[in-house]
């Protein structure tokens, strides 16, 4: 029997909003006991004095880039980066090459993950074939192969009727449809948020309405059909308000926010640094305030990174030519703790809930809580550690971050998957 004892930490159970001093014993990959002053003669002891023991963090929005874009990231590098960021599980978006839109592709990518991944990998299937928005992918067969949600992330399903059918069809499998909300016509050739900073830089603007009309549409469709829908990377004040109102009417809508959307504003684009180029774009200060408010009042259920690694060569070009995306999985926890927990916008328990139990429940994943008998996926967090973001130190192949040189406080000290230490600071 393999025994690991975490001693001296503070155990957080986000599902119960509880936090107490306790030791935690893992035996053969399962949580065996949680209690005060545990003494286990034959266990390997890890001193986590003064640190937080959290359920393993779950990121339901990452781009691992395999197959097809191995130069940007691989399942191996992406999940090792996840482990360093404190995540014990990730859900991979299907916009690879080929797009993960059928059973055999799901099978092969999950098999590869089983071989190479440092953390648990879940796969999200495409809504439509090739994410082209034309005809439904084989959603049921992909479900049988293990997809945990469906999404055409990166593209919008512009055809409202097709989206309506997808919501209906997915309901039979209790699959959540994750909607990338962006009206293609309103977004046009846009690369940045429409506002004062798009005006002075002359960069093509994307109005807030490009996101909001689709959020409104998908809420109305879910409401009409009585199905659930999840809004990916919510970024505008108007979209948050739409979700808030829908929830108050009882619509089964959830949404996620990415760290860069509550930590950074579009003022950064005046540098013309393409690491600020992300979709949805960095928004105004008012939008950032609204995202924080939505996180605080529970409108925004989940924090997900939209980890989108790209190479330096791809990013070091004219702004319009650079791909959208931020490599965010190694900075997410630090940004959450620094921007949300430290200023008191969220309690530690509530912040961790949005990184653990909430995403787990929404996508019917195991994990997200600490319970005896559960699989030992854990993240030990050092709340006090101050560090500076150095992209060159990222494990991810994507060094593309607008957080370079940002001072953060708080970081994963230990990441445990299935009882095994996969990252240690």
């Amino acid at each position, binding site marked *: 029997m393999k025994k690991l004892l975490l001693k001296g930490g503070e155990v957080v159970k986000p599902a119960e909003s509880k936090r107490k001093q306790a030791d935690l014993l893992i035996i053969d990959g399962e949580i065996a006991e949680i209690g005060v002053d545990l003494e286990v003669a034959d266990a390997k002891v890890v001193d986590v004095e003064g640190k937080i023991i959290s359920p393993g963090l779950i990121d339901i929005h990452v781009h691992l880039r395999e197959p097809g874009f191995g130069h940007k990231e691989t399942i191996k590098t992406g999940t090792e980066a996840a482990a360093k960021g404190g995540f014990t599980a990730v859900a991979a978006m299907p916009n690879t090459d080929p797009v993960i839109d059928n059973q055999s592709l799901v099978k092969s990518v999950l098999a590869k993950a089983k071989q190479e991944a440092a953390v648990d990998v879940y796969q999200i299937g495409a809504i439509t074939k090739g994410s082209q928005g034309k005809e439904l992918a084989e959603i049921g067969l992909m479900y049988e192969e293990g997809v945990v949600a469906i999404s055409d992330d990166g593209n919008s399903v512009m055809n409202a009727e097709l989206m309506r059918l997808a919501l209906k069809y997915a309901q039979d499998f209790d699959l959540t449809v994750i909607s990338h909300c962006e009206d293609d016509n309103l977004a046009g050739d846009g690369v940045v948020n429409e506002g*004062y900073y*798009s005006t002075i*830089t*002359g*960069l093509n*603007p994307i109005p807030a309405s490009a996101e909001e009309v689709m959020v409104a549409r998908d809420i109305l469709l879910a409401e009409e059909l009585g199905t659930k829908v999840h809004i990916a990377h919510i970024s505008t004040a108007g979209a948050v308000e739409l979700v808030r109102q829908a929830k108050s009417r009882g619509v089964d809508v959830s949404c996620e926010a990415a760290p860069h959307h509550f930590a950074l504003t579009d003022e950064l684009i005046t540098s*013309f640094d393409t690491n600020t180029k992300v979709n949805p774009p960095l928004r105004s200060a008012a939008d950032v305030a609204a995202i924080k408010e939505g996180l605080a009042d529970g409108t925004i259920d989940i924090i997900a990174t939209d980890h989108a690694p790209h190479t330096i060569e791809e990013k*070091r070009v*004219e*702004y319009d030519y650079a791909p959208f995306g931020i490599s965010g999985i190694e900075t997410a926890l630090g940004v959450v703790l620094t921007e949300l927990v430290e200023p008191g916008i969220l309690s530690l328990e509530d912040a961790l809930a949005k990184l653990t139990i909430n995403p787990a429940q929404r996508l019917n994943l195991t994990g997200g809580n600490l319970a005896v008998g559960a699989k030992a996926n854990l993240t030990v967090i050092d709340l006090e550690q101050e560090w500076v973001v150095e992209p060159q130190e990222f494990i991810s192949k994507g060094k593309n971050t607008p957080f370079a040189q940002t001072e953060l406080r708080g970081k994963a000290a230990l990441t445990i998957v299935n009882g095994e230490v996969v990252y240690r600071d």
Partner: protein
Amino acid sequence: MVWERRSLLGLEELSKDEIELILETAKSMKDVLARPIKKVPTLQGKLVVNLFYEPSTRTSSSFSLAAKRLSADSMGLSVKKSSVVKGESLLDTAKTLQALGADAVVIRHGIPGAAKLLAEEINIPVLNAGDGVHEHPTQALLDMYTIMEKRDKIAGQKIAIVGDIKHSRVARSNIWGLNKLGAEVRVIAPKTLLPVEVERLGVEVYTDLEEGVKDVDVINLLRIQRERQDKGFFPTIREYVKFYGLRKEHLELARDNVTLMHPGPINRGIEISAELADSNQAVIEEQVTNGVAVRMALLYLLIRGGSKDEKAIT
């Protein structure tokens, strides 16, 4: 006042003193252009490369001529748009420029920030000759020089910029520069051709041409691109002309001796009536001449650096 910047990327970043230094230096250059022999040996042996990703005969010729008047060598590096897409990157081109021994690069590019990207990569002066919808500083400086010449001063002048403000780098650079020198700037356009929050740049916003030109000293008309009609920014050219084409009757609302400007090339009968384009109040050709003087001043300041040295240009 000593010139210290390596590159000229835009007017947003310049101080009032820097702009005034450029305009003063341009005056000396204009004197050179008025001589029988319009050439000085100031930049002999220096190489100025024009790197134009967008076609522009006017601006490119103006820069070439400015270089030649200062005895510098001028060469164009033709860049095919297709090769850019295929991955011949701006930064690779930058390395070529250094290897060629260029002393300054003039860049015109369709994407905002391209001049800055180039300037970050090479250690020779970069002159922004227009980067997308961001800035076109030399056009604005020649506009300001022309206003100075025609109206004696810029401070307090009421200046209207009319047309497609949303897609205009000329408008943006003019607004930054004119405001720094104390002008009262207004923009006149249909709402579809105004960028959001444009008033935060310190301009008064009008959507009615007649109201907008009331009591103005200068009217600067922007070229209207026909492709904007296709994208629905206005229904037809005919309708645009009806509401925003400048005609004689509008001048009665402005100051008596109002100055009419246009960055060219003009669409006669569209943004300005033929009659007005040929009138005494129009200074469109003088803008072209002043453009050479302003570009000479900038090449001089950026390549020679330091203060305006009268001896060097006599």
